[in-house]
């Protein structure tokens, strides 16, 4: 599935958006890092029949529970895929199947093309040591070891020497901002700090795949947001493929390049965040999305429209006017030497000043505008739009990408208000 955006999707009130999502672009071209094919997991009844009498009381119906049935999905190199669903939907089972803490009943899981469902115990250990690491909901720290010893654990299992693993541990702890806590026991740290230890432990082994099972669920809302931002920041620095489990819609939409919604062990929908918002596959997904805040989910890049631009120099008024006319534009941006926006010309201003055609246009350049990153949620700059301020979208290097029209933002806000009306529709049980 391509995470592009389709404009004419019937009654959907969202305005047409250009398919320029950076995330979508990324996912289109790389090879899958993890491939899950038709995965099924049935719990219970693994014992030979002769030993059934030894089982504690359990009635026959509850002895076999399908936690996953026929789930298939791909995770691309460098992507964050979020598994979302209510409790019992199979998301934890799915993430644990990827490092085989849970053994699937049937189906295949390929990591870099290698089927790990049939892997031997030794091969599995090797994979866990080198390729896949994990962060747990309640941190899963070892209370009898210091923070540094916890972070070193994976390296110790890898038989890395004590000196080397200590320096690596300190390096990773520094990355998560806990360098000063190395010699403390986890119990003396706050929840957020403990989870950063858990994250550091997972990062220390340099595994390419990071599995995160509801890592921030146990944290208070402020710490949670802080940790989410930390993860996004680290992600820019470290090229990891992340499978992230959560039951929080906003967390899923904020972090995920793509989000897989699970229901009763099946895949309800798998797509980019805005797809889930704009085109929920069924009532279940729609019901889940009711709690989402589109203003936080939709990013500036999604509303960004291409706009004409000039390079900063000795721009003659006549040239500027011609450019505006040629492109039938109201406004033209002026870019600095690195491609960064420095100001813009507005057509309206020039029409009154026809006779100064040979003069320098610089004096008419307007420098009052707001620049936002493509990844900035709309909610963060909606206020500027309401005040008719011009919003320019730039990429991570600060290069001009396009502009956000106040009308588009207004339409999105209207849709957000509408969708909160839609929320009154019957929920999926």
């Amino acid at each position: 599935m391509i995470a592009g955006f389709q404009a004419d999707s019937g009654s959907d009130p969202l305005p047409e958006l250009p398919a320029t999502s950076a995330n979508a672009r990324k996912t289109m071209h790389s090879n899958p890092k993890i491939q899950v094919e038709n995965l099924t997991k049935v719990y219970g009844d693994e014992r030979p029949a002769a030993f059934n009498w030894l089982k504690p009381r359990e009635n026959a119906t509850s002895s076999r529970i399908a936690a996953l049935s026929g789930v298939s999905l791909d995770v691309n190199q460098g992507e964050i895929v979020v598994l979302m669903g209510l409790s019992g939907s199979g998301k934890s089972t799915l993430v644990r199947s990827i490092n085989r803490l849970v053994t699937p009943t049937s189906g295949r899981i390929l990591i870099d093309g290698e089927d790990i469902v049939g892997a031997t115990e030794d091969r599995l250990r090797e994979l866990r040591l080198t390729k896949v690491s994990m962060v747990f909901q309640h941190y899963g720290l070892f209370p009898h070891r210091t923070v540094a010893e916890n972070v070193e654990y994976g390296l110790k299992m890898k038989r890395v020497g004590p000196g080397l693993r200590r320096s690596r541990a300190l390096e990773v702890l520094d990355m998560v901002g806990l360098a000063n806590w190395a010699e403390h026991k986890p119990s003396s740290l706050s929840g957020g700090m403990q989870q950063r230890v858990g994250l550091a432990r997972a990062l220390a082994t340099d595994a390419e795949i990071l599995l995160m099972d509801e890592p921030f669920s146990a944290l208070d809302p402020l710490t949670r947001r802080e940790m989410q931002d930390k993860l996004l920041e680290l992600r820019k620095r470290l090229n990891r493929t992340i499978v992230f489990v959560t039951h929080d819609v906003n967390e899923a939409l904020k972090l995920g390049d793509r989000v897989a919604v699970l229901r009763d062990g099946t895949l309800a929908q798998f797509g980019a965040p805005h797809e889930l918002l704009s085109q929920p596959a069924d009532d279940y997904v729609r019901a889940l999305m009711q709690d989402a805040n589109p203003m936080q989910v939709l990013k500036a890049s999604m509303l960004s429209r291409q706009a004409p631009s000039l390079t900063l120099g000795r721009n003659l008024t006549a040239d500027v006017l011609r450019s505006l006319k040629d492109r039938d534009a109201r406004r033209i941006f002026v870019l600095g030497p690195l491609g960064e926006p420095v100001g813009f010309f507005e057509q309206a201003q020039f029409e009154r000043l026809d006779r100064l055609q040979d003069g320098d246009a610089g004096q008419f350049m307007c420098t009052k505008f707001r620049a936002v990153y493509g990844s900035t949620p709309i909610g963060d700059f909606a206020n500027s739009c309401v005040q008719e301020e011009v919003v320019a979208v730039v990429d991570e290097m600060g290069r001009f990408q396009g502009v956000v029209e106040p009308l588009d933002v207004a339409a999105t806000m209207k849709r957000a208000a509408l969708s909160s009306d839609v929320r009154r529709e019957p929920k999926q049980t």
Partner: protein
Amino acid sequence: MRQRPKRFLSTAVAIGLMIACPAPAADTVSRLPGQGVVVRTGVGPLAEETFQAEIVNIGLERLGYRPAPILHMTYPLLVTALATGDADLMPVFVEPNFTPLFVKAGGDAKLRKVGDLWHEVSGFRIDKRTADRYHITNIGQLKDPAIAALFDSDGDGKADLVGCDPGWSCEPLIERQMDAYGLRNTVTVKKGNYAALIADTLARHQDRKPILYFAWEPFWLGEVLKTDRDVVWLEVPFTTYPPEAGTITAEETDLNGRNLGYAHGHCRVLGGKTFLDHNPPAARFLSVLRIPTEDLLRESYRIKQGEDKPENLRKHAEQWIVAHQTLFDGWLAEAGMAAGAGTTGGPTPGARGVLQSVLNPFSLYTFRLDTAITSSVDSAAKTLRPFLQIFRGPVAWVLLQVRSLLLAAPPLAVLILVSLLAWRVSGVGVGIFSLLSLTLIGFVGLWEPAMVSCAIVVTAVMFCIAAGIPLGVVCARNDRIERVARPLLDAMQTLPTLVYLVPVVMLFGIGEVPGVIATIIYALPPLVRFTNLGIRQVSGEAVEAASAFGSTRSQILWEVQIPLALPTIMAGVNQTLLFALGMTVIASMIAVPGLGLIILQGVGRLDVGGAAVGGLAIVLLAILLDRTAQGIQKVMREKEAGH
């Protein structure tokens, strides 16, 4: 199954007969010499004694007395009850063995002895095979270490003589003889519960090994190990008795020209002075009653074969009377009763009609589970005993090391070291408590037994740790094993401790080492439970995390599960420690020395003070061990928690 209808038929006939012959009317009873006076007869724990008491009761009943249900209690308590008037008769008073009890309880002022039911012969016995081969006829020959070594059962090179229960009159007498005959260096006397100890003797005899034990007749043992067929009496060099026993000459200890060293016992009827003085017919009957020794021996053996229920014993008594009817009627007549009159016999108490047997169907049939167990344990003992002996070696070695360490060190050094340790791990309070309690134990003269008990406890706990923690780990990691192990552990912990002893004796023998083994078995369950619990309580995420970072199963165990379960495991060790200390008291019944023996002797001799001091020492040791172990746990937990 086929027998059941027949049985039912005969029961019905019996009930019909009972209805046809009603009990003597109350006025008939009041015209008899007994005048309906209630008689409370009491006996000790042996079933043979109940048989005897039933004969006495039937006689008294025919004289018109109304016997109350038979009382069962220990001899010292029974003698005291007679003196205080809480009981009336004790038809099992053996002289001179019980004479000290008689004196202690008030003597002739409160008690009166009548009759002479049977004679008792006591002495030392060895198996005939060894006696013939080495020409052993006298216990004095055991002075020769080579002869003594023949009877060694625990590997220390000294002969092991099975003595009797601490508190019995024979116990101090055997000690006196050991000194008098100069046998201290070559013979060890094993004291404990005689019945338990003799189980080992029988097992050794089955293995065709030499045996050496104290014995008396009549006792069922005489039917199993028959005189001059299996075993022979040993002579003693000379007769020796403590001065307080009065003058006992060699004639009194002679049996057919051989000096056995023990005055023949006379079984008499001890009664409350008031009761016997006021009831001349009863006193007269009891003074003429005789029971031949061979009859008692036969009865003893029937009891050993499993016919030991109260109704069996009552029936045996009735059968015995029928067999000796003329004699018995003569005794009754002498007691003031016309021969034949009133001897028709009333219904046996308890059976009142068909309704009774419907309401109590258990009276119709008894499934002899006990005999089944006895025979299976017997055969298991026979086959397993040689194999199980391999466990003795390591236990004996560790015990020897620990005990010689504790006993060889100067008491002052032990006292100071233990107190310092207690202070370091549990604080000043426990340190001072340790100092004071050890000092007290030392000054009441119990230092050595206390150290012996400690050595046994420490040895047992060491083996419990070595076995219990791995077992607990196995249970924790395998649900199936846990489901099988849990009811077993429950049973081991709930089973009365005394029940352990006899099988342990049959399988391992008697003495310190089997005592330690019994203690290990008893003290093991809590440690297995706590280890299992501790490991299962380790957070699932920590285990998952270890696994997710590539740990093997054994790495998970050593790096995560055991360190995290350690506080719980230590709590289990603490429990095991206290269980072991408690068990050393019970284990003293199979010839284990230490504080338990002090307590057993005190209780057996009605020496309240002695038992209390022993008990106090146990309590002090228990508190000391518990607090110190808790201190060690706390230190470990703090280390765990870090800052």
